[in-house]
């Protein structure tokens, strides 16, 4: 295994383009190292992106949105008061990834690129309408986060392409988001079900919503039926019932060691209801 620590994305892409074997990018490393240790993936070339200037930055954009560098750790994200005020759901999703120790290393981009349908930070990004900037041998492109994972362990990135930043849109007024996941313990587990809700209010009424589900399909889902269930409502019990039913209907999970199918379907509805209430409260606050 060769280790590279390029100083620019161009250099990183050039290394990747010149590599013939297995290539992996290293940001926080909390997935790559586990796979390396278990003998699942031993890259021929490991490209450490953390030394590239700007990758540790969280920047407010002129339109009020946010640009998050790819090496920003969960701990750094959680310590950024303004970002937390705007997108608490996005941040709490990231903060649920692993332990305090893992938070010192793990990144949003890494969590996304690992391609797990259970990735805790991804539903929040999807609900927020986040996008990624991708740079590759053929230039730069933007992609909505929900289009990045294509199946478990696989992303839409072409060979040689690298995500260079994540962009969150401007939050705006009377808006809130929230992420909840279900795990058997209180910490240290992979989500059995995850649900993120982002909504905008006009008075008491929901005027816009994006709702996503994790760990219930091969990729994180953006569920329009869930959004439709609450848009135009005051999130009354009838709307919440409809939301829960839509979430359970959208969930198409498998049964595995982390939870049976029926349980995931049920809990998708439970979490959608609970997360929506939190997002609503945050929007009102």
């Amino acid at each position, binding site marked *: 295994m060769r280790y590279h620590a390029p100083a620019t994305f161009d250099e990183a892409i050039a290394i990747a383009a010149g590599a013939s074997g297995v290539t992996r990018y*290293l940001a926080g490393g909390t997935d790559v190292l586990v796979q390396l*240790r278990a003998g699942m993936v031993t890259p021929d070339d490991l490209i*450490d992106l953390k030394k590239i200037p700007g990758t540790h930055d969280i920047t407010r954009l002129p339109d009020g949105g946010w640009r998050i560098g790819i090496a920003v750790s969960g701990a750094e994200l959680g310590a950024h008061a303004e970002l937390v005020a705007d997108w608490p759901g996005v941040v709490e999703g990231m903060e649920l990834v692993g332990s305090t120790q893992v938070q010192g290393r793990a990144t949003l981009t890494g969590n996304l690129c690992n391609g797990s349908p259970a990735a805790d930070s991804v539903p929040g990004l999807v609900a927020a309408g986040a996008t990624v900037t991708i740079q590759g041998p053929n230039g730069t492109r933007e992609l909505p986060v929900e289009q990045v994972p294509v199946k478990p362990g696989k992303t839409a990135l072409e060979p040689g392409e690298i995500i260079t930043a994540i962009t969150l849109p401007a939050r705006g007024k009377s808006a809130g988001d929230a992420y909840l996941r279900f795990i058997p313990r209180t910490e240290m587990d992979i989500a059995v079900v995850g649900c993120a809700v982002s909504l905008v209010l006009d008075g008491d009424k929901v005027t816009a919503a994006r709702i996503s589900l994790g760990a219930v399909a091969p990729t994180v889902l953006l569920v329009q039926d869930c959004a439709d269930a609450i848009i135009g409502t005051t999130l009354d019990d009838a709307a919440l019932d409809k939301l829960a039913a839509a979430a359970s209907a959208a969930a198409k999970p498998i049964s595995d060691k982390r939870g049976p199918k029926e349980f995931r379907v049920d809990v998708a509805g439970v979490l959608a209801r609970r997360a929506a209430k939190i997002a609503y409260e945050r929007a009102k606050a």
Partner: protein
Amino acid sequence: MSKIHVQATVNGDSVEFLADPRETLLDCLRDHLDLTGAKEGCGTGDCGACSVMLNGRLVSSCLVLGVEAEGAEISTIEGMADGNELHPLQRKFIEHAALQCGFCTPGFLVAAKALLEKNPDPSESEIRFWLAGNLCRCTGYDKIVRAVQDAAAEMRGAA
């Protein structure tokens, strides 16, 4: 397999070692620097026994490559006491019998110190969630949580 020369600061001392790119920081601390206080309980970032501070952040050293430590400031359990003067957490862990086998203890101490530096007066729940990535199979955590609470109180000057 060509090794990479790494220079870093560990517990205030400047060190250098040759790391195979596949070796973790934990491997390098233990095998190249003879600092065996950090332990490998899982190798997957799930047990916290290998906890160290890396550039001021609490990390699992099994999830960091040795070569990533170039230029870094690292502190380990071996640097926690000031000579013969134990850190209050170390004293309180002994006093409260917060260890049985002691294998997880270095990781708990490093992690708890990081907590108290960030939050000098944590609630029981904050302690438990901060330390959720440190597994202890002997104590049921009760005495560990009490030791951290007591050390925090002493460090705040309240004890």
